[in-house]
């Protein structure tokens, strides 16, 4: 299989879906002439023109609302947030409008819209620019939340998102954009369904659930632990809403131990939700309490020594696996 970067995988999904469906358009800050703040949309303006690749002023609530209105009335917008941190000024549009319109109208109006952009910390961009927004959006009924870690998942899931009849929150990562990975050839279309996780690595001793950026830290931790004779199974749920609880439970029933890794803060969020569901479904199979590894419970500091300390590290993940394995 060919290898491409995550950034290119996202771009291919947008391009293919825009080629296939005239109603799909891309809107956001610097997506056109600038070729994307992180170069995700490079080349799309020249291919599709200003009608379908639309640069906006800095007005997130405005263009999120424009997208929702257009979606309700038959178009299929892809709304890019330069980063998800800037979605907070548009939060009301997403929570009060996008997620509510369908049921509020008795099922009259569908809202087929994708909100996408990089989520989580980048590198030393400090507290206002380092949010993992997944806990905020996963709390809302009426929307899908997708958080792919690999290029292949990004492409296959984004294509599904663009064809979806409901609002989708699509969480990429600035530090993921350069990640390379195998992706099917251009003529082999792959649509990855929502609610289906993926085993990133097989193992018998401990399940590590990981999604988004820390998936890679979890993989590294697994390599290290394998050298000490602890074989971890890495399960990436890929979509957080809906959650592939069957796959997680199946893995835990095999390994009897589990660590959940996430970038978001420790209080609540998908990390806690996953623990809650697993302990209910697999209580009798667990040999130890489930532990979590996330960012520390503080706003993100600027200094790099502290940022590295706050984010989930390979070391903290390995420690957690050892703790639940009662190993030294």
């Amino acid at each position: 299989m060919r290898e491409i970067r995550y950034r290119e995988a996202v771009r291919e999904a947008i391009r293919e879906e825009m080629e296939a469906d005239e109603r799909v358009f891309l809107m956001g800050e610097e997506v056109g002439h600038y070729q994307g703040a992180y170069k995700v949309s490079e080349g799309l303006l020249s291919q599709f023109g200003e009608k379908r690749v639309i640069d906006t002023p800095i007005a997130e609530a405005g263009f999120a609302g424009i997208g929702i209105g257009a979606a309700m009335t038959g178009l299929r917008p892809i709304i890019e947030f330069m980063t998800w941190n800037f979605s907070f000024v548009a939060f009301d549009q997403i929570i009060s409008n996008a997620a509510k319109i369908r049921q509020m109208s008795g099922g009259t109006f569908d809202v087929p819209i994708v909100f996408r952009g990089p989520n989580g910390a980048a590198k030393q961009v400090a507290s206002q620019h380092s949010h993992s927004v997944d806990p905020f959006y996963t709390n809302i009924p009426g929307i899908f939340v997708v958080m792919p870690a690999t290029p292949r998942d990004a492409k296959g899931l984004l294509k599904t998102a663009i064809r979806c009849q409901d609002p989708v929150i699509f969480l990429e990562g600035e530090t993921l954009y350069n990640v390379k990975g195998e992706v099917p050839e251009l003529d082999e279309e792959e649509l990855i369904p929502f609610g289906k996780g993926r085993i990133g690595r097989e193992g018998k001793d401990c399940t590590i659930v990981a999604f988004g950026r820390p998936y890679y830290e979890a993989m590294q931790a697994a390599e290290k632990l394998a050298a000490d004779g602890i074989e971890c199974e890495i399960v990436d749920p890929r979509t957080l809403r809906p959650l592939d609880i069957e796959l997680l439970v199946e893995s835990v029933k095999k390994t009897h131990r589990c660590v959940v890794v996430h970038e978001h803060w420790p209080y609540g969020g998908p990390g806690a939700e996953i623990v809650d569901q697993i302990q209910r479904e697999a209580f009798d199979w667990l040999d130890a309490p489930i532990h979590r590894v996330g960012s520390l419970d503080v706003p993100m500091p600027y200094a790099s020594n502290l940022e590295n300390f706050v984010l989930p590290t390979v070391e903290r993940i390995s420690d957690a696996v050892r703790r639940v394995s009662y190993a030294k």
Partner: protein
Amino acid sequence: MASGRDALLEHYRAMYLIRRFEEEAARAYAQGKIGGFLHLYIGQEAIAVGAAAALREGDQVFQTYRDHGISLALGMSAEKGMAELMGKDTGCSRGMGGSMHFFDKEHGFMGGWGIVGGHVAVAAGAAFKSKYLGDENVTLCFFGEGATNIGGFHEGLSLAGLWKLPIVFICENNQYAMGTPMKRTSAISDLTLKAQGYGMHGDRFEGYDVKVVHERVKQAVDRARKGEGPTFIEIETYRFRGHSMSDPAKYRSRAELEERKKKDPLVITKDQLQQAGATIEDLDNIEIQVEEAVKAAVKAADDAEPAKESVMFDSVMATKLGPQNREEAAR
């Protein structure tokens, strides 16, 4: 007039300090000593220095992430600034904020803010405090032309106009919001029209001559201090560097940049000084002193202790939650 010349010399000193501070910051960034976003103010110095000169003690200033210039103009030491950029404990925000989030309470600097438009209503809140307490202080709120399109800007101005708050909004129109020229983000080109609807005074001028900036901002500040309500000022300017260090600024031509550099505020001030009788020696002295200050700042920042875990935890809230919180945090 000697006193006028002396004042102008001090303006030149302040502008030169900003310029050299940022050039060294750019170098340190290239060396990997500074991380994250670094938005330079080079080219816009006359605005920060002219505006700061219109203030008195007790006044309060809010700025975006492009905040090094105003911090230094208000009197913050280069050492504290450089240490913050390098993530050191001796920095103005103790290494927690970095380039985008300078704070300096002592000099009335209320922060560099990262979310476009997010600080506008907050600045109006500081002005509300002044009206509430009758302390006769004035608030300045800076932002770029790109910010005039976002809701936070409009709600902040709306309330400031309604309640006649003692605040001056300064839009530094440097022509581009990241890579986007204003003609692609605003249906109108005279931005004071946006403020008119909120019932406030408007003013609009070029920001290359520090004396002009000083005079015009002072008029607005005096008006605010007398309780005559807010002013919105649009100042034409230009940034010589990219939006941030990661922006190669391919959206504008070399020729355009060279043309704009003819209006370099430092060059303009230097010419004015020479016409006013300042000697080469006067100017050299200032430049040498600034060089030394910047060099010392870099050295001190290099040598300083890195930002501290204890500060990171203990500064989150005023309420002390005790060690249990830290354990929970580090779980």
